């Protein structure tokens, strides 16, 4: 039983190590910027290409923290006062994905529009 316990703990640790080391980096990731000022996101609409992972840099110019939150994008990240946060979204199918500031959901709202890129 001691062996089984050891094996079980090893599997758990392996899971984390694999997750951390199995980093897959996109060769070129497009970057988009969002600024939070007076509890309002600017721009409130961000258009990104479909089926591509992109980087979103959120700058909080307010004096208090805000949590960037999106159920549609499966993302939530606290952005501290006067700081930036980088998050990655996608690849996503075309559509509209809402996001909001968890701490000021009435004013801090926006939408990510995912569009098919025509070559």
């Amino acid at each position, binding site marked *: *039983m001691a062996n089984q316990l050891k094996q079980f703990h090893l599997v*758990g640790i392996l*899971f984390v190590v694999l997750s951390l080391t199995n980093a897959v980096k*996109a060769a070129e990731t497009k970057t988009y910027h969002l600024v939070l000022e007076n509890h309002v996101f600017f721009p409130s609409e961000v258009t990104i290409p479909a089926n591509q992972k992109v980087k979103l840099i959120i700058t909080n110019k307010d004096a208090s923290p805000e949590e960037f939150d999106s*159920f549609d994008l499966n993302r939530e990240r*606290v952005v501290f006062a006067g*700081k930036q946060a980088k998050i990655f979204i996608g690849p996503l199918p075309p559509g509209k994905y809402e996001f909001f500031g968890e*701490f000021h959901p009435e004013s801090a709202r926006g939408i990510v529009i995912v569009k098919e890129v025509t070559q």
Partner: protein
Amino acid sequence: MISNTVVVLLRDMLPLFILIAYLSSIGVMQSLDKKWLKLTLFAAVTSVVAFYFNFELIAESFEGRGYEIVSSLILCLFFICCASVSIFSGMLPSTYQKWLLAVGIVLLVTLKATEFMVYFGVFIQQSGDLISICLGFLMGISICISFHLLYRFFLTELIAHNKIKTVYMLWFAFITGQIVQIPERLSQVDIIDLGKPLFNLSEFVRDSSEYGHVLNALLGYESSPTTTFIGAYLCSFFLLLVISGAAARNAGLPISQYFSGESK
């Protein structure tokens, strides 16, 4: 303001109330004493306060990936502690079992309570509408306590009807639901790639709805899961089942008897 506070409280605190419902139903807490409770509570409060005041520092570390990495490690340790205690309950010395459980509880409380405290701190700092926040807090806590009592009753009834295996399956789904948050957290900061969502169940249950929050806290529900998410979920869940089966076989007991803590 009130509804937002209720939603944030449900998202952050409901898993803790569900955890307590399981722990008080499946019998692992039967051998715990007041000293253990006091020490665990003290450790949890200390840990939450320390984590809260260093939240920004943690978040900014590892090139802005600190929070995702640290929270993933916390969730992983929580999973290991809770799974060890429930699967190897008959084999581990009771002192070892008690402290493993304490570590698991402290870890989850630290993560969830700190996330709520950040929200609460912002409003204490800047909002004049303290009454709304307090009302929202009271409503949210009342919902959590009511849900906890109902769920505990449901689990106790299952155990009374000899459905201990079902209770353990639900418990495994709960702790699996916590560990599968790891891939999402890591993909958010580009440490792993999750790929595209496999399907979308938003038409039935949206993540943002009350049902979505409850299902997420109970089972780790996601309305648009990716292949990695489903793979991680199934692997963790079946790993727990397989190890439980092996542990029961080793003890020479049917699995239901093994879980109910009966000796051969």
